């Protein structure tokens, strides 16, 4: 009984480790292809343009609405709390840390993961089941160059661009709250933010957005690629992919928070 249990644990652990190893090998291959200029053929560039359109431009109306409503309420609460605890002197750095370092990239990553991550996972899984991936392999079309790279690059570009947009909208909403709550004029608010913002904050925003962008596409692609050869396996693949993606997003967020604290 005990031996069976140990065997079961060992078997599961080996399988899990192998799957992690495979995922990192796949990630490494994608990274190598990104650096190779030969990967950027006309077909790949067209897919990249389409992906940027679908991932970034297509989401803008929903994104701005969400940023205005949700972002305004959250930034308003932060300002009210800061004022309540007599932290008016620190309000600039509180807003910058909260908006630029944490909230904007994370919220954008969640939105992109929900919208584009699921779409990419489903698309690759369907292509796999329909044997479209086999067709591409038969014609010696590199799947990484043609299908995966455009999605990964568009993930990085869209997440970075949308995080910056989100941060701008939240900072704008912050001014409205500050104006009504503390009667501060725009010039004073802008000066407050400029004094509080550091290169580190911008660097953190870019690095986090890029990391979120990579995992938001890489994990769904890998999950779609591993789909078993039946239509009933597609929802399971999307479900597994999304769970792994959310774990990865929270992991990156926790790591960045730890770096920030240290």
């Amino acid at each position, binding site marked *: 009984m005990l031996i069976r249990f140990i065997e079961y644990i060992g078997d599961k652990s080996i399988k899990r480790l192998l799957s992690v190893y495979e995922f990192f090998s796949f990630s490494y291959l994608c990274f190598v292809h990104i650096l190779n200029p030969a990967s950027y*053929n*006309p*077909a*790949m560039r*067209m897919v990249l343009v389409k992906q940027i359109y679908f991932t970034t431009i297509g989401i803008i109306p929903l994104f701005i609405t969400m940023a205005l409503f949700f972002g305004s309420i959250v930034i308003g609460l932060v300002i009210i709390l800061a004022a309540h605890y007599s932290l008016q002197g620190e309000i600039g750095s509180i807003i910058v840390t909260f908006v630029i370092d944490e909230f904007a990239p994370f919220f954008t990553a969640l939105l992109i993961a929900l919208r584009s991550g699921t779409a990419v996972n489903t*698309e690759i899984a*369907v*292509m796999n089941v*329909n044997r*479209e991936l086999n*067709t*591409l392999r038969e*014609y*010696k*079309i*590199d799947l990484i*160059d*043609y299908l995966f790279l455009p999605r990964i690059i568009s993930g990085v570009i869209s997440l970075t661009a949308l995080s910056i947009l989100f941060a701008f909208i939240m900072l704008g909403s912050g001014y409205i709250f500050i104006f009504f709550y503390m009667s501060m004029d725009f010039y004073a608010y802008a000066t407050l933010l400029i004094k509080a913002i550091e290169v580190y904050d911008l660097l953190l925003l870019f690095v986090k957005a890029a990391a979120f962008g990579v995992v938001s596409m890489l994990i769904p692609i890998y999950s779609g690629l591993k789909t078993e050869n039946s239509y009933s396996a597609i929802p399971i693949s999307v479900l597994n992919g999304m769970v792994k993606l959310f774990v990865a997003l929270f992991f990156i967020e926790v790591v960045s928070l730890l770096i920030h604290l240290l």
Partner: protein
Amino acid sequence: MIYNLTIVENIALIKEVHERMEIGEAQRVAMGYLRDISLEHIADKRVNECTLLEILIAMIIRAMMTREASILIEVSHTIVDSVHEIEALFTIIKSLQIQKSVQFLDLIDNQTYYEGYRCNIIK
């Protein structure tokens, strides 16, 4: 075939990837072949909007785009609907003036479908 591409995009893809031909030029080449066999109306259609024969012809034109010396068509009688379509397919292949050898590989059970047509049946 790739389902989220149109027929002309599917055909042009091979030249775009292997010869790094610009998209417009590759699509013009693909369109030229479709025009030769009066099938330009399927150029902007997706796979699910085409008949089985149209899909098979598009697959043959796509195979023409490669640098391989011969085109093998496997179990064609499970792809097309009827014997009449096989005849139409032979006519189209001739009019495409393909510079490669085109061979059909099929099951012995389907031998009767090809009898009477000008083709060699090799067992």
